[in-house]
């Protein structure tokens, strides 16, 4: 069986980590051909488990627009039994469109591959795990990257252009507004420090950021903190934000609502610092510290 994998790549660059994790998952299904719609074809060719790299060009394709990317994938789909991508915002935009054009269902957020047509995926904000068996001819799926290790380097797969496909010209890219940051990427960071409503203000979020910077960690936030304007929305961890599974997750002033837990409960070690000792976050935390985070966090930052 052959697998077509859509790399997480655009004109701004390649997300090597997400792509390499999806390659690990896809390799269990068959020979992997990676379609790179933006930058980083050479880097992808170096990842173990890749047998071939195809590159595509064009403004729409390189900015992740669904219509031209879906048209491109559809043109190649007949050669593949599985079409796979890491479950990022780009893939979630494109793959359901591809699936509908092939008249098959999409299988989003796969956390385990049982066999070529049986998959596990979380539902109800991660409160249940479904095992689904697909009856479709082509399996179109996105994989939740937190559940798979990143494939290593040490490969030299051939790179060639993908077959041309006409852009349906239904939408046009205008601009991207990407936040500049030196911190590690939230979804692949080894340590994540997150702040919630308990942080109190945008200024106080510096407490969270200082601890994160001292630990070399990524900064996250709960939906409450984002909605209150304390943190930008791409920091949001949860069902409607990013799903993370770092080695260490530190929750500061986060109560632990269902929607937040869905985004972080697969972390290896969870630490909660909260002044409410009955906060639900303590039910999932390996280590809890009850107290005022405005005295605890600076103390922690100085001692790490």
């Amino acid at each position, binding site marked *: 069986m052959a697998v077509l994998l859509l790399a997480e790549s655009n004109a*701004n660059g390649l997300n090597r980590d997400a792509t390499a994790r999806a390659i690990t998952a896809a390799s269990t299904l068959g020979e992997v051909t990676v379609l790179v719609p933006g930058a980083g074809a050479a880097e992808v060719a170096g990842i173990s488990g890749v047998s071939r790299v195809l590159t595509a060009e064009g403004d729409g394709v390189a*900015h*992740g627009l669904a219509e031209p990317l*879906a048209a491109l994938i559809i043109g190649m789909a007949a050669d593949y039994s599985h079409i796979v991508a890491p479950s*990022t*915002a780009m893939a*979630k*935009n494109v793959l*359901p*469109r591809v*699936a*509908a054009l092939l008249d098959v*269902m*999409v*299988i*989003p957020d796969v956390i385990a591959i049982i066999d070529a047509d049986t998959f596990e995926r*979380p*539902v*109800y904000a991660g*409160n249940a*795990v*479904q*095992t*689904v*068996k*697909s*009856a*479709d001819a082509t399996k179109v799926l996105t994989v939740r990257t937190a559940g798979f290790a990143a494939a290593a380097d040490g490969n030299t797969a051939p790179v060639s252009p993908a077959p041309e496909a006409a852009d349906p010209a*239904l*939408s*046009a890219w*205008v601009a*991207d*507004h*990407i*936040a500049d940051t030196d911190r590690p990427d939230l979804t692949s960071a080894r*340590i994540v420090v997150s702040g919630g409503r308990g942080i109190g203000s945008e200024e106080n979020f510096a407490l969270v950021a200082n601890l994160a910077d001292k*630990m070399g960690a990524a900064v996250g936030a709960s*939906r409450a903190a984002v*909605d209150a304007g304390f943190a930008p*929305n*791409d920091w949001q961890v949860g069902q*409607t934000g990013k799903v993370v599974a770092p*080695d*260490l997750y530190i929750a500061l002033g986060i109560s632990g609502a*269902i929607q937040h837990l869905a985004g972080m*409960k697969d972390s*290896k070690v*969870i*630490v909660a610092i909260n002044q409410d000792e009955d906060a639900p976050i*303590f039910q*999932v*935390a*390996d*280590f*809890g*510290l009850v107290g005022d985070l405005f005295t*605890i966090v600076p*103390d*922690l930052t100085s001692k790490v």
Partner: protein
Amino acid sequence: MKVLVPVKRVIDYNVKARVKADGTGVDLTNVKMSMNPFDEIAVEEAVRLKEKGIATEVVAVSIGVKQAGDTLRTAMAMGADRAILINVSDDAGTDIEPLAVAKLLKGVIDAEQPGLVIAGKQAIDNDMNATGQMLAALLGWGQATFASKVDVEGDTLRVTREIDGGLQDITMTLPAIITADLRLNEPRYASLPNIMKAKKKPLEEKTAADYGVDITPRLTVMKTVEPAGRTAGIKVASVDELLAKLKAAEVL
């Protein structure tokens, strides 16, 4: 321009879903159900377009059990003009797949000819995040998913989308499909007088057969289980103790 808004009746977002002991699914008996939160945002955006004079009529559509009629009444209390209920099941535990929903919605759209469809980005029960994209594909329309800002200028749509790492602006030609992200707007509460008025608004009932759509699932759910639970943790008394524990756990 007519605006169509698909809405879904789902378990209330504050309720923790309980998995049935026999592994057949999630227990939905005697559980509070509500409109999917992202669909409330979609309805709100459609109503705001009507208040700006851009939309002439807002039509809400729901697919599922008869009780989804309540969800449609909520949409009408928020300002939708009329509603269509496609009754496809007698059992609230039967979740119709996004592909079948998209095909049914295509049937509605072929009949209603809206200029714009606004859907939620995902339903909080199956967490699929697929129906809007699938519908756009079936119609051959453009799609603007995860929208946090929408401007309609004549027959052009300008949308700001939430992408990983930031935002993206795109333009598209109408007709098109938008899927609403959380930050698109703050949905209004339905006032009591509007709830009373909504009871008099038209609600048309249909079946899947009316649209000639086969709703047989493509994905068979073999089993539904609880995720692996976390072992109970401990409370520490001080920062020093916490750091010692983290070092012992080899995560620092």
